[in-house]
C-alpha cells in the first residue's frame, strides 16, 4: 500500500514539474495562439474576440493557476484551436493512437518473437546471416522511409490498402484494420527488428545460465530446453521493451501519424505546439506522463506475474 502511495505521489510530482516546465517554455517561446489560428489576414476584432473566448486576456500565471485548479476538479480546460474540451480531444485521439499501438504491438510480437527465437536457435547456420542482416537493416531504416516504401508497394503499386486516414472500430473491424495495417507495419517492422535483437541476446544470455547446464545434465533435449526453460526466462527483459514501445506509440508517433494523416495523439501534439494551444499542450503533457507511469506500472505487474522471484519477495 505504501508502495502505491509512493508511486502516485511520484506521479503527481512528475506532472507538476513537467507542467511547470512546459509552462515556462511557452512563456519564453514567441507565438500567439489567436494569430496562429486566424492567420495573417485576421481582423483585429476577430483576434480580440478569439482571445477573449480563450481567456487569453488574463495574465499567463493566472491562466496556469486556473488550469491547475481545473485539473484537480478533473477539468483539463478547453483547447484554443479546436474550441473543444481538452479531455475530449485527447480521448478521441487516444482511441486512434491506442488502435495503432494495439495493432503495432501485435504485429511486432508476431514478427519479432518467432524470428528472434528462430534466429537464436539457428544462429550458427548460414541461413541466419541474411535474416539477421535483414533485421539489422529494417532497424536502421527511419520510420518515415519505411512508411513511404510501404505506401509505394501497397497503395501505389498494388492498390490494396489505403495510404491515409482512420476509420473507427465501430464502422467495422475490417475497415478499421485496413487503415491501421500500414502505419502499424511501419512501426512494427522497425520495432520487431529491435525485438529480434533483444530476444536473440536475451536467449543467448539465458543459454549461459547455470540452470541450462542442469537441464542438459538431465538429458533434456535442446528443443525442450529452449521451449520449456529458456523462452519464459528470455521474455522477462523483452517485456520491458514492449512496455517502452507501447508507451512510445501511445505518446504519439508524430512522423507516422503525419505521413498517414492519422488523427492521433502525435498529430494532436504537433498541432498543439505549432498553434501554441496551451491548454491542449498541458493536457497532453499530463496524458503522456500518465501513459508512461501506467505502462511502467503494467510492466511491473507483468513482471511479478511471470517472475516468482519478484512476486514472492
Amino acid at each position, binding site marked *: 500500500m505504501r508502495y502505491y502511495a509512493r508511486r502516485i505521489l511520484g506521479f503527481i510530482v512528475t506532472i507538476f514539474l513537467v507542467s511547470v516546465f512546459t509552462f515556462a517554455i511557452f512563456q519564453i517561446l514567441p507565438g500567439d495562439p489567436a494569430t496562429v489560428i486566424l492567420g495573417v489576414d485576421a481582423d483585429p476584432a476577430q483576434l480580440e474576440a478569439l482571445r477573449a473566448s480563450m481567456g487569453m486576456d488574463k495574465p499567463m500565471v493566472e491562466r496556469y493557476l486556473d488550469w491547475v485548479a481545473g485539473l484537480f476538479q478533473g477539468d483539463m480546460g478547453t483547447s484554443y484551436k479546436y474550441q473543444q474540451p481538452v479531455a475530449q480531444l485527447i480521448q478521441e485521439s487516444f482511441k486512434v493512437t491506442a488502435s495503432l499501438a494495439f495493432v503495432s504491438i501485435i504485429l511486432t510480437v508476431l514478427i519479432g518473437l518467432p524470428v528472434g527465437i528462430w534466429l537464436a536457435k539457428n544462429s550458427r547456420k548460414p541461413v541466419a546471416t541474411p535474416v539477421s542482416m535483414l533485421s539489422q537493416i529494417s532497424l536502421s531504416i527511419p520510420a518515415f522511409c519505411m512508411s513511404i516504401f510501404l505506401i509505394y508497394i501497397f497503395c501505389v503499386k498494388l492498390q490494396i490498402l489505403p495510404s491515409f486516414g482512420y476509420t473507427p472500430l465501430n464502422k467495422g473491424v475490417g475497415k478499421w484494420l485496413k487503415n491501421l495495417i500500414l502505419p502499424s507495419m511501419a512501426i512494427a517492422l522497425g520495432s520487431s527488428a529491435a525485438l529480434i535483437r533483444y530476444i536473440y541476446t536475451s536467449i543467448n544470455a539465458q543459454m549461459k545460465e547455470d*540452470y541450462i547446464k542442469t*537441464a542438459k*545434465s538431465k538429458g533434456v533435449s535442446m528443443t525442450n530446453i529452449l521451449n520449456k526453460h529458456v523462452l519464459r526466462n528470455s521474455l522477462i527483459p523483452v517485456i520491458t521493451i514492449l512496455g517502452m514501445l507501447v508507451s512510445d506509440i501511445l505518446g504519439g508517433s508524430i512522423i507516422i501519424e503525419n505521413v498517414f494523416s492519422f488523427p492521433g495523439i502525435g498529430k494532436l501534439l504537433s498541432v498543439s505546439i505549432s498553434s501554441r494551444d496551451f491548454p491542449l499542450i498541458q493536457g497532453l503533457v499530463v496524458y503522456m506522463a500518465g501513459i508512461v507511469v501506467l505502462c511502467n506500472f503494467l510492466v511491473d505487474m507483468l513482471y511479478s506475474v511471470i517472475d516468482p522471484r519478484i512476486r514472492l519477495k
Partner: protein
Amino acid sequence: MIQAEKKKRVIDIKNLDMKLKIENDFYNVINEVSLYVEEGEMVALVGESGCGKSMTAKAAIGLQPENSVLTGRIETDNENLLEYSEKEWEKRRGKETAMIFQEPMTALNPLIHIGKQIAENARTHGADKNEAKQRALEMMKMVGLPDVERLYRNFPCQLSGGMRQRAMIAMALINNPELLIADEPTTALDVTIQAQIMELLKEMNEKTGTAVLLISHDLGVVRNMCSRLYVMYAGHIVESGSIDEVFENPMHPYTRGLILSVPDVTKREQELVSIPGTVPSLAERKQEGCPFYDRCERRLEVCQKKACEMQDVNGHMIACHLYTGTQKEV
C-alpha cells in the same frame, strides 16, 4: 583387489586429452587423464581450482565446452562415450550418469516449480506425468526435504541454499543412476550445511548404490567420504590410490602440500599457504617437463625436461621422478 576387479566400472576414463581452441590456438586442459569409478563406490577427484577437475567431470557427462577437442576413451558398458552422438548422450544423461553442481542458487530454473524440475528428469526418461510426480515426491522425502507436497509447488527462490542442493540431489538421483558426478556440491554453502549435504551424499550412496565421483578442492571433506582419491594438477593426474594409503603416505610433493594445508574444518576456503605460487593458466602451461616443476620444493633436474610416467607403487599410483629412484634432488 581381486574382489574389486569383479566390480563393474561405471565409468572408465583412459588417457583422456582435452584441448580448448581459443582464437585459433589450442590449449591443453586435460592431459592423459585416466580415472575410473566402480559401481557403488565414492571416489574423490581433488586439486586446486583451475586444475581441470570440472573439465574432466564435464567430459564424463558429455557437457564439455563446444570449443574443445577430446581424444582418448571414456568407457562404460564397453562403449566409448566419446563416440556418442548428442541424441545418445541425451538418453544417458540424467539416467545412467547424473550431475550436481557447485552453485545451487542458480542451478535451478527460477521460473519453474521445484517439484516439476525434479520430475522433469523422470519425464525426460520415459515416466508419465503422474509417475514422475510420485517419484519426485518420494525422492524429495528421501533427501530429507520437509513438507514435500507444498514444496513441490514452490519456486527455487523460496528455498534456502541447502534445500536447493537437496532438491538437486533428488533430481539427479530420481532415475537411480549408476554414477553421480558431484562437482564441488558444497562449496557455495554454509559450513554447517556443507556437512549435512556431504552426509546426505554418503547416505544416498549407501541407500541407492549410486557411485559418486566427488570433485572437491577440499581434502578434509573427502577424507571421511570416499574410498579412493585422485589428485589432479594442471590437467594431469599426479597421484591416486585409496584414501587411507594416500593420506598416510602422500608421495607426490603436490599431494603432500595439499595434505599439509588441509584447512581447519571451521575455516572454510582457507588458502593453501604451504604451496607457493598458483596453478598456471592455460597459456602459461609448459609443453614439456613436470607440470608442478615451477612450484615443487623437491624438483629434480629431470623434472624440467621430462614429466614422469604414472607408476604403480603397490597399488598407489604416482607420477613423480622422486620415486623412480634414479635421480637426485636439485
